[in-house]
């Protein structure tokens, strides 16, 4: 039990940190997501060193710059609050970065991709797209699922019949095939922001089917409870009944479904972008960062390009105890 508790806290902490890092990407990332260092294509991760060539220990880590023709390699210490290229963050123009090294040294914590773009920076910027897409899409489906499912369960009759037939239709298709079919309807080439919004609308539009069935069940059970009948008898409006009596009982399902759907939809975003149907270059998403790995040579030779896959694994792994915990809690609440 205590182990479980610890696991939950660890998961929540990691998730919070990951999301903070994603939000703070403008500050934390050493380089812009589209900054190309052409002479450093597929550079392996830069090693942070503490010992120089004489074996002397330095308290400040430094990086070795490559020895090039016409000059010996030097060292550059890692510094906090360095000045980088300016970029627009909301209303402000920010030049400072949390850490970095001075040119001509480069700091590629997770190496670079084929265009010499820093994988670590792209990972942070990509997290924004992938994680937020999952959160928004899950939010939309759960809300839609609640509205439609509760309407179906609460009113019954024709509404119920039609809505449930619809969910059946959606569930009669394998989820990814359905996602692809709907994606195929829309224009193939979209700007990054458009693609992001389209993704959320698509997934929200087809993802409500499963939660809707659960919400329907809650509403059906709720509407025959005695205090609900009593409230109705006293003249309460449908709106009042739904918001004051059905909604509170649905909250457990609401949060559990949300926690279950977020990782699923993050994966959906990654999958679509991976296959070239989602957010496109140069804006990074964890999916399109992985796309180059479909070439066998990249996969075999440049292992650090798998960093988004590892990040994905961590995030999904952390959502699991959260969903578990929510599920247990609602079960305990129901009993």
């Amino acid at each position, binding site marked *: 039990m205590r182990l479980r508790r610890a696991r939950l806290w660890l998961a929540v902490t990691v998730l919070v940190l990951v999301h903070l890092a994603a939000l703070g990407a403008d500050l934390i990332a050493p380089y812009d997501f589209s900054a190309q260092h052409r002479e450093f294509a597929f550079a392996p991760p830069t090693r942070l060193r503490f010992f120089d060539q004489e074996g002397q220990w330095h308290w400040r880590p430094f990086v070795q710059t490559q020895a090039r023709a016409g000059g010996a390699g030097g060292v550059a210490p890692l510094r906090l609050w360095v000045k980088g290229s300016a970029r627009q963050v909301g209303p402000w123009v920010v030049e400072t970065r949390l850490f970095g090294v001075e040119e001509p040294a480069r700091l590629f914590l997770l190496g670079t991709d084929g265009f010499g773009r820093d994988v670590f920076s792209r990972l942070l910027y990509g997290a924004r797209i992938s994680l937020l897409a999952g959160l928004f899409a899950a939010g939309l489906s759960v809300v839609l699922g609640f509205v439609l499912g509760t309407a179906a369960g609460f009113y019954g009759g024709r509404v119920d019949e039609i809505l449930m*037939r619809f969910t*059946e*239709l959606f*569930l*009669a*298709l*394998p*989820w*990814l*095939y*359905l996602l*692809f*079919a*709907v*994606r*195929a*309807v*829309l*224009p*193939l080439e979209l700007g990054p922001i458009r693609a992001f919004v389209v993704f959320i609308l698509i997934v929200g539009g087809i993802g409500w089917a499963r939660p809707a069935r659960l919400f329907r069940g809650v509403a059906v059970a709720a509407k025959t409870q005695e205090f609900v009948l009593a409230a109705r008898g006293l003249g309460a409006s449908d709106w009042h009944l739904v918001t004051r009596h059905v909604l509170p009982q649905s909250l457990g399902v609401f949060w559990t479904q949300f926690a279950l759907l977020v*990782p699923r939809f993050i*994966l959906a975003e*990654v*999958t679509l972008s*991976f*296959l*070239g*149907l989602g957010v496109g270059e140069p804006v990074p998403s964890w999916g399109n960062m*992985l796309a180059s*790995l*479909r070439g*066998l040579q990249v*996969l*075999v030779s440049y292992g650090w390009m*798998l960093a988004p*896959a590892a990040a*994905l*694994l961590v995030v*999904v*792994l952390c*959502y*699991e105890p959260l969903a578990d915990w929510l599920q247990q809690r609602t079960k305990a609440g129901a009993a």
Partner: protein
Amino acid sequence: MNYVLRRLVHGLVLLTAVSVLSFLMAELAPGDFLADLQLRPGVSEETISLLRARYGLEEPLPVRYLHWAKSVFRGEFGFSMVYQTAAGSLLLPRARNTLFLTVTALILAWCTAIPLGVWSAHRPGGIMDRMAAGLSSFLLATPTIVLGLSFLLLAARLDFFPTGGMSSLDFDELGWAARLADLARHLVLPALALALSSFPVIYRHVRAAIGEVVDAPYLRAARGQGVGALRLLFGHALKAAANPLISLFGLSVAGLLSGSLLIEVIMGWPGLGPLLLESILARDAHVVVGAVLLSSVFLIGGNLLADLLLFWMDPRTREVR
């Protein structure tokens, strides 16, 4: 028979609805193959309208749907603009390959999940249980993309397994035994990746279902009468817990099909997945609709199979409601 018939009709109705829906989506999509063709400088406005008339794209939507539906019954699945041939001749071999991969993975996943799940439920908290639980947690969280990429990496590193395709170049010249071996070598990694992606869900359900019955009085009675552990677990407990598992069998087909789409694309298995992706990118509408329809045929077929199995196993479902 009543029950089976009802399920069959239900499946057919659902399939028709899916076909209407997917056809509508494909037809209402903005832009199509011909619109893309128009972008070429050598293609004139007149050519396009001529082609439109020839392909029957000027007809009203219901007529087009009926034409298409008829061609589905002929096994043609409409017309592929890109390959200038019946879409069915592209789709059906691919569908066969997908089915081959999925069924292999399905068997693999169930045949490992059942013994492991039963044993875990038999000795909860034991070393097997804890190991299997850890493994299933990890696998559950491993995205299919990551799984596929790692297996591809494995294939590339090991040098023994091929890194794509379904058969070697000299496949036609091999004897039947060598052909079988060749096929198996191509099949192993994709099937394993796919099976691993669906294993944890099945394992957890098996464990939960057996766990619910394993302490039931009738099983304790059977144990008291000296029925051996193996027979008790696999003969009695598994039978008692079979109902939800059979339903899960139908559902697991859905998960496997979604997973196989990705695994096929990543690992280069010539199934429906790569074809679907290609045809989406090329705006080959009928191929897209056909692939979606076929996937839903498999899914509904899997559910139907589960229903039949349930009908056969559980006399309670045979009573007319």
